[in-house]
């Protein structure tokens, strides 16, 4: 019989890390960090997502093909959000030819 890909120990550590990071997100919310509060919350959320993908979803142990698919998803999402925001944030700041 093959050994399971990830040990119970690793799962437990991941689980505890996720709970601690969730608690950290909540506690940071109580500090008024102004415009940074959302950014930090998103940053911690991304760390949590990375833990889930790497260990719970076995991402770390999968083939290169799966890694490429995961990377494609992240990159396409970043293209969508950066191009959209690139438009909205600069509206009214950059001159529009002919307007």
């Amino acid at each position, binding site marked *: *019989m*093959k050994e*399971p*890909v*990830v040990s*119970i120990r690793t*799962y*437990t550590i*991941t*689980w505890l890390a*996720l*709970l601690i990071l*969730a608690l950290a*997100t*909540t506690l*940071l*919310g*109580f*500090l*008024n960090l102004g*415009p940074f*509060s*959302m950014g930090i*919350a*998103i940053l*911690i*959320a991304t760390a*949590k*997502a990375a833990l*889930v*993908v790497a*260990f*719970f*979803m*076995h991402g770390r142990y*999968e*083939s290169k*093909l*799966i890694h490429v*698919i*995961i990377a*494609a*998803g*992240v990159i*396409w*999402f970043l293209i*969508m*959000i950066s191009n*959209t*925001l690139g438009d*909205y*944030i600069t509206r009214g700041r950059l001159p529009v030819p002919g307007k």
Partner: protein
Amino acid sequence: MSKLDEAFEVKPPEVLELREQFATPDQQRQTAMVGIWIFLITEVLLFGALFTAFTVYRLSDPQGFDLGSKDMDTVLGSVNTAVLICSSFTMALSVYFAELGKRKSLALFLILTMLIGTAFLAIKFTEYHSHWVDHKVPGLWFEDHSPHAAKIEMFFVFYFIMTGLHALHMTIGLGVLTVLLFRTAIGSITAEYHTPIEVGGLYWHFIDIVWIYLYAIFYIPGIHLK
């Protein structure tokens, strides 16, 4: 045997392990993994579009959106985050026991995952109910007298669409787990063939990731205003 019976016929594990179109069981598993991951990427884009729209609207009036976030129930939201993380943990253990071929433990952890998932939905709907009571349902029953009322209403539009779509995914996830539990019960999951559990697990973990982000954008920015 009718066509319908054939479609629902449960084949023995030896047949499922290596279907005729594949050369090896490993190739069959890889194919399933590529399929579910590509599906999850399309889901990233589905939720991603909503996150993008949320960011665009939030940038137009961050203060208004923070005031909307102030109306969130921090305790219920935080408890729900912990609940969902626990359900991901039990799902991960289900996969662990599936890999070992321990049918009883697998079934136990699938049931636990479903129970915790149901608890999440119960807490979510308690929250929805309190929004209804507080007159915070855009379009149907919304009252707010702050100068930012229009943006707070917009915040709640995003809140209901995004958490609603998430709750729909949870409900579908519970359906998936029910099928997996049934397949475990009839013995079609073995140490050699447990791809369905892995695939279902990946979907469940993905829903967890979506919630991790929903928690960050809806519940956190307003906490310090309370």
